[in-house]
């Protein structure tokens, strides 16, 4: 078991013929992910590397292949359109990798998604991986840009706002022989589709997830919300890390959402919320896996 995706999930790629989309489609195919379709308007009828059929529209691809998930690699100025196209085609999951989407576009996207069944992951995220049991965790489902080989099939759920910091934590687990159920990147933007809390709830309900790692960073109150819920309802051990204790207020630290503004979103406040909720806080990014394993 896992959350959101598994080895049966059929995935279509929006922006499959772009450089970035093509590179990661190849890696996902090699990992064993069921990439069943690509979307590049104007290239419908062609095939990606003689394998994956390309369509002009998401609805066509869904009808022809039964895809239920999409991953978006299109440039920022086209991303809002791509997300809403996926949502209106009735997909269950849309994973948006694209970075630098204007916040206003995402405000409108979320408004347009109201009442729709689609879950959006991201934008500005590394994607989602449910490891398989082959070598280098192949045979699972890799959607996005995470390196597949750092994973290992197992029972820890990982939720994070950052890419490489997630790889760091996942790699720490794998090197200790501890596998993951699913690793979810929720993205570093101020407006995103899925929150820490959404992911933690799914992990809590997933019988195959036995422990949770939640990685946050400065900005917003997503970590605090998740912590408040965990305190009351979570039945599984949770360890966390918050990046940005040394970040100055008022400056955006790389991620559009990583900013302390109006005195809100500090690392200190998030760490305090974690501690109050009984979440074990890793003292450094090197201790994330260890901190969780001590609780197990």
């Amino acid at each position, binding site marked *: 078991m896992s959350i959101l995706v598994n080895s049966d999930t059929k995935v279509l790629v929006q922006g499959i013929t772009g450089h970035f989309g093509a590179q990661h489609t190849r890696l996902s195919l090699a990992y064993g992910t069921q990439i069943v379709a690509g979307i590049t308007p104007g290239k419908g009828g062609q095939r990606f590397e003689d394998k994956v059929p390309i369509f002009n529209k998401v609805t066509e691809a869904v009808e022809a292949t039964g895809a239920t998930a999409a991953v978006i690699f299109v440039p920022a100025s086209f991303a809002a359109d791509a997300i809403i196209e996926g949502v209106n085609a009735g997909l269950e999951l849309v994973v948006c990798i694209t970075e630098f989407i204007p916040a206003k576009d995402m405000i409108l996207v979320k408004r347009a998604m109201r009442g729709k069944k689609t879950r959006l992951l991201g934008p500005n995220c590394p994607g989602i991986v449910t490891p398989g049991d082959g070598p280098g965790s192949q045979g699972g489902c890799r959607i996005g840009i995470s*390196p597949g080989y750092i994973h290992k099939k197992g029972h820890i759920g990982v939720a994070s706002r950052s890419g490489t910091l997630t790889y760091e934590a996942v*790699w720490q687990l794998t090197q200790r022989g501890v596998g993951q159920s699913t690793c979810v990147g929720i993205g570093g933007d101020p407006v995103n589709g899925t929150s820490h809390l959404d992911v933690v709830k799914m992990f809590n309900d997933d019988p195959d997830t036995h422990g949770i790692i939640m990685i946050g960073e400065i900005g917003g109150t997503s970590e605090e919300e998740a912590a408040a819920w965990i305190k009351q309802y979570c039945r599984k051990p949770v360890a966390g*890390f918050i990046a940005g*204790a040394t970040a100055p207020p008022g400056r955006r630290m790389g991620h559009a959402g990583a900013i302390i503004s109006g005195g809100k979103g500090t690392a200190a406040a998030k760490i305090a919320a974690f501690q109050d909720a009984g979440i074990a806080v890793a003292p450094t990014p090197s201790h994330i896996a260890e901190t969780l394993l001590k609780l197990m």
Partner: protein
Amino acid sequence: MNIHEYQAKLLLGRHGVPAPTGVACDTPLKAKDFAQELFEQGQRRVVLKAQIHAGGRGKGTFKNGLKGGVQICGDAEEVYERAKKMLGGTLVTNQTGPEGRVVSHLLVEAASDIKKEFYLAVLLDRATSRPMVMVSTEGGMEIETIAREKPEKILKEIVDPAVGLMPYQARKLAVALGFTGDMLHSASKLFLGVYQTWWENDASLLEINPLCVVEQPGGKASLVVDAKMSFDDNALYRHPDILAMRDLAEESPLEIEASKYTLNYIKLDGNIACMVNGAGLAMATMDIIQHFGGRPANFLDVGGGAKKEHVTAAFKIILGDPNVRGILVNIFGGIMQCDIIAQGILAAAREIDINVPLVVRLAGANADIGNKMIAESDLKVASASSLTEAASKIVQAVAQSPK
């Protein structure tokens, strides 16, 4: 990106939001001439406001001794004399740091006869993913202070982005601030204009503090007396007019240089520089330097692949900061393998001539090979197998280095 007060008032003006009559001037003579016009129109006092991207101007001090980045003058000669001291002067406020900011423009405005002050802001409410209009009767105070001391004095109205701020919501806020009669309507109209200015320009924050009720010859009116505006960098591509307002003199030269190479660099005041791939890991690396007793000199994300040309540019920028006494490179080789990354780092380090201790930590695919390449190179660079080891090594090396 931030803009100056006078530029924000210009944008607000395009949406019908009134501010005192004023003009930005870059010479004392221009300031005097415009002030003269205002005096001739019957204005009794004129205010000179230093234009810098930092708050606390009123209580700031110029390095030449002049107190106050906001000066009120009673005649044109006084305007000329004060402007001469302010323009080209360096203003230090509680937000500029001790180095201060050079003032190149003054906003010369008719001084208002202020009866009441309010706070008004439009920003993104991250909890709801919607725009939010925020008002308070405690104008003139910093919002952080109001939020801490009198949170009940802050009123928030969440906006449905499908329809924008509705007039009834604007009226609700105006009533809450105590507006009545004709003033209720003019204040509501002002709120709608402020919201439009925020929305249509892809602003991230538009803060009016204070919004004032002033006494004018024609009666009472609401005016924007000070405005602060910043923009969503991701949306600047569709606002060339706003991009043209960028004032490079307000930005750190190293940060401007970094942006040319699409490097995300933020200068801090420590002495251990770091170079990392990914924003979250970059923040975490700064944190671990502090955890071991060091102080980070910067935030720097070299991007996913950490390619040679990026690394070379990054080393140059890092070393452009005279405080830097050591460098920690922390790369998680995900898609790109660590031996390739090690080659790039070594090639860049060879090209640059790095004269401070350098510790490199690589993790991910082929990390062993990469770390071995670093350890065995002829350059003065140490490798580390874990981030903990890397951070403690660089903190120690810097503590032991001369100076």
